[in-house]
């Protein structure tokens, strides 16, 4: 666990050293702020003290940002050979994956935490459902974990960053849109299954303020699944026939 933390610290520092972090924070706050306050179905248009517009826009921006963040994390180490250097230290494959996961998650949490002023501002505008807000934040973090683990998996199976990015988006599109659309077309068991697999179903119910254990379990299990797959694809080098 200690090695994971050492790796996470290094990754986080490299985000801030390479401007990636600043660009991400500025663009994320910019876009989510723009759509929350100024444009489309923003707060003033709805006329309610709610953070719902922010959550639905953050939901889509993170969908693009997280793969951009994770695409280089393992692919670049594989390409440049630093992975070999890392794994010949007393560090396991799982430590490496965990370290990268923690670093990306921390950066996303920082980005989300910086939107707390939106919450405070809206709170001052009118009566706000505090439970729904905190649930929404909780849901965003759960969803970010899911995306990060998918992004890390995509990054671990290739040493090309663009391939990793596109693959993560591709998997994301299924969870975000395709399962949702398909579930409307099917009835019965298949419909239910697709509905369960769709990320938006689970996110919507959490961001409305209903925390159901099944939803939490959904996000956590995809996260763990993604991380285990990423580790497996690193360990693959050891497979001998």
């Amino acid at each position, binding site marked *: 666990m200690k090695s994971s933390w050492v790796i996470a610290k*290094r990754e986080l*520092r490299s985000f801030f050293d390479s401007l990636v972090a600043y660009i991400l924070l500025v663009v994320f706050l910019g876009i989510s702020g723009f759509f929350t306050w100024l444009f489309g179905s923003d707060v003033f248009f709805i006329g309610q003290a709610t953070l719902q517009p922010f959550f639905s826009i953050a939901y889509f921006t993170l969908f693009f940002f997280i793969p951009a963040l994770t695409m280089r994390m393992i692919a670049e180490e594989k390409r*440049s050979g*630093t992975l070999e250097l890392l*794994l010949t*230290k*007393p*560090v396991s494959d799982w430590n490496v994956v965990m370290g990268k996961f923690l670093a990306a998650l921390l950066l996303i949490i920082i980005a989300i935490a910086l939107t707390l002023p939106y919450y405070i501002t809206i709170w001052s505008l009118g009566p706000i459902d505090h439970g729904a807000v905190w649930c929404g934040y909780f849901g965003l973090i759960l969803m970010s974990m899911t995306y990060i683990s998918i992004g890390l998996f995509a990054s671990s199976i290739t040493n090309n960053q663009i391939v990793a990015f596109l693959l993560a988006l591709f998997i994301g599109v299924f969870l975000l849109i395709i399962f949702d659309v398909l579930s409307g077309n099917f009835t019965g068991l298949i419909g239910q299954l697709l509905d369960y697999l769709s990320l938006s179903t689970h996110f919507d119910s959490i961001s409305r303020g209903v925390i159901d254990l099944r939803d939490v379990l959904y996000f956590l299990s995809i996260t763990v699944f993604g991380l285990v797959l990423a580790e497996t694809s690193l360990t693959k080098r050891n497979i001998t*026939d």
Partner: protein
Amino acid sequence: MSIVVNNLTKKFGTQRAVDNISFEVKTGEILGFLGPNGAGKTTTMKIITCYMAQNDGDVKVNDLSILEHQDEIKKQIGYLPENNPLYNDMPVLEYLSFVAELQNVPKDKISNRIAEMVNLCGLDIEKHKKIGELSKGYKQRVGLAQAMIHDPAILILDEPTSGLDPNQIVEIRKLIKDLGKQKTVILSTHILPEVEATCDRILIINNGKIVADGTADLLRKRAQGQEVLRVQIAKPELRDKVFEALQSLDTVALVDFDNENNSSFIVNSKDNASSREDIFHMCVENKWVLTEMTPLETKLEDIFRDLTTTN
């Protein structure tokens, strides 16, 4: 710390990159790993450092098998991989402290160790720069520094002097020799004089198999078998006479004219005998002036070529 490699085999598809090799390295020994490109040197090193799993066989570091005790073994090893991969966007000092933390160097000793490594590897002027901004030679030094930062008992260096200038090469070789007194060192290289200059023992491998194992002198003797001398006598007009006299000596097996120099001869002594004294006495008796008598050594290059091209 001793390393024992036992019947190690690694296959890539159908190709056997390492084919059933066994060898042993004792504490305080510097082993030079020689071989043409693709002979299996790097693969063997990757297996010993627990990066890659073998198909068959075992490696024991200090009686611990790499199949079971990876973490303990990794702590004992300092490894400089081929091509020296580094994080180019990190400053040198930050990188060294990152590696020290990963290697579980106690917090209060980290800055000491880093200062020591910076000193040892001559990184003082460049220590605040980002690694990507360094020249190849300095990057190589950073690679060496990170390999040694936790004071490992075993050093595995894959082409440690590539990219260094001649002065640095001499420094690094001296460093490796000094380190080799207490540590076990395995280094691979293409540069043959380097092996002679630094290693106690040489292991030549070709097509995944060990083709020679021993000190440089031992390999030379084995390849050569007999003493070969170049003899020059002052007067070229005596050529034929000297030739006959040399041929008639008891210890001489074969005499040949030197193609490059008219008044020189190449003298092959008989097995396990030296003809140097006989030649000297013969010249004294005949009052010939001996202007040159040089033992010709087979160069390590020749041995290497012989061993790696014949099979």
